């Protein structure tokens, strides 16, 4: 009963993680683009390429898990049964990749200059199309992030997963890891100067909000499961115990809660407070740098290290969350319930 779920190995877990992170990264990129199309364009562009890679690798993971990967590759045949959320999700991922790709392509610097060279009209059209793609990508992206939870929710064999809160949890976590990925991309592109300070502050605030939301959803998720006690929910409660106090507890508390939630929140809050102290007038680090305050190499390295610590923790936590929820997915045991009723019938007959 308390054996871990092993029929699905690491690939489906990674698929769920990458799907959520990729979708979240695009949604974050689209938000940044909306806030400041000029300054955020290059980070938004790089992030949407990153999002495409995440979804593509995720789909490949799903395919390698199959006992018949070659047949699985023929998506149009193998994913053709639309009562299955695996089918709906696979095509949602393909649609998301198509939209992300168009955005990534059109937001390239060369495209921007090419449109600008053709005159004001072309530039305006280019900007309008990008905004439209950003909106479409956000919608599909949110769908993909929630879908990763729906995939598990619609498997009735596993009571732990049959919670409407699971898609919410995975969607919030997907956005959270997406923000982290974008932050890492921004740091990788010229040490964080690729985004305006104001936008980095925005991402930090977003991180704080998402961590709070995720903690609330996690509490509700486990609260409901532990609150119920009979029937199929016995195994859901057992699975929750496994995560909160059993074999999976060290990973759950250490990776999901401390590294994935507490660390990013602390780092983001710290950065926000430090920023406010240093710049009471509201200037960001990028502006500070521009206005002559050059950082020494060592300083820059240490500030980059601090900037990536939170996002790396968030990614580790988000990844661990998918692996742990999949591993804790023990089946219910309706046969045992049926036999228990049978034993009671026998006693009643005596």
């Amino acid at each position, binding site marked *: 009963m308390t054996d871990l779920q092993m029929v699905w190995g690491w690939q489906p877990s990674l698929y769920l993680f990458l799907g959520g992170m990729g979708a979240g990264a695009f949604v974050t990129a689209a938000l940044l683009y909306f806030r400041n199309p000029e300054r955020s364009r290059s980070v938004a562009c790089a992030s949407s390429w990153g999002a495409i890679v995440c979804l593509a690798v995720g789909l490949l993971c799903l395919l390698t898990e199959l006992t*018949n990967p070659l047949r699985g590759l023929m998506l149009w045949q193998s994913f053709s049964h639309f009562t299955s959320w695996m089918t709906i999700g696979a095509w949602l991922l393909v649609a998301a990749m198509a939209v992300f790709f168009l955005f990534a392509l059109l937001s390239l610097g060369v495209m921007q200059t090419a449109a600008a060279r053709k005159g004001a009209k072309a530039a305006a059209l280019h900007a309008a199309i990008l905004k439209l793609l950003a909106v479409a990508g956000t919608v599909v992206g949110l769908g993909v992030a929630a879908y990763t939870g729906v995939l598990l929710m619609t*498997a009735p064999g596993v009571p732990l997963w049959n919670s409407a809160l699971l898609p919410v949890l995975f969607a919030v976590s997907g956005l959270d890891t997406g923000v982290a990925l974008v932050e890492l991309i921004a740091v990788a592109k010229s040490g964080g100067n690729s985004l305006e300070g104001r936008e980095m502050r925005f991402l930090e605030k977003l991180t704080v909000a998402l961590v709070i939301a995720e903690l609330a959803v996690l509490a509700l998720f486990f609260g409901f499961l532990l609150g119920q006690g009979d029937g199929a929910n016995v195994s859901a409660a057992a699975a929750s115990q496994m995560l909160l106090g059993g074999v999976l507890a060290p990973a759950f508390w250490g990776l999901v809660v401390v590294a994935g939630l507490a660390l990013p929140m602390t780092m983001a809050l710290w950065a926000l407070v430090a920023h406010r102290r240093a710049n009471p007038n509201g200037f960001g680090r990028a502006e500070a740098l521009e206005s002559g305050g050059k950082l020494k190499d060592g300083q820059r390295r240490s500030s980059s290290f601090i900037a990536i610590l939170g996002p790396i923790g968030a990614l580790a936590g988000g990844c661990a969350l998918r692996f742990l929820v999949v591993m804790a997915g023990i089946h219910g045991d309706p046969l045992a319930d049926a*036999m228990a009723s049978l034993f009671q019938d026998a006693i009643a007959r005596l």
Partner: protein
Amino acid sequence: MNQRATGENAVSRRTALMGLSAGAAAALWCAAAVPRAMAAGEDAGVESASEAVEKTQYGFLVDTRNCVNCQKCVAACRKANNTPDGTPARREVRLFESHFGAKAYLSYGCMHCEKPACAEVCPAGAISKRADGIVVVDSERCIGCKYCYQACPFSVPHYTKGGMDKCDCCLGAGVAPGDEPNCAAACMFGALHYGRLDDLQSSCGNTARKVESSTGPSYLLL
């Protein structure tokens, strides 16, 4: 059934060829969905026309008072369906104990549910419920994603190189749909019975207990 399978395969082969030349998967999907929808329409016609089987449901009845865990049903199942050593059989005998120490064995396999969750979640449409209620897997379509295992409340589906493997009431072993599958035929103690669910229920004076699940298992217990 056979006709339907070949018809669908022809469609998928055609779309497969179309797919080779096209990169845009979305366009492909539309192209594949239309003939498939047509094929689905044909299926409905085939099913309503097929014989006079109205809402038949074959299933099993286990009289747990008679089961002694002799494993003859499991051995017969393995033999008839060529289950290799090292691969789990399609049938299993499990021991249950009550709080008061009473023991009972139960031989079980696929429950051939009224609303099979496995068939619903299968992305490839490889699992179907026949007009006689038997749930079967088309190994030509199965991709082995193991989603059906997660969907099945009884953890029945397991996987071999050929994809998902489970009880098909010995249809694959050449037993006609209404006939006794090898497991029930092998039971010497009158524990494992097979037949139409309503016949099985009336054979014991409607005293059998149905296994409860949202999927509606076709499995009776005594």
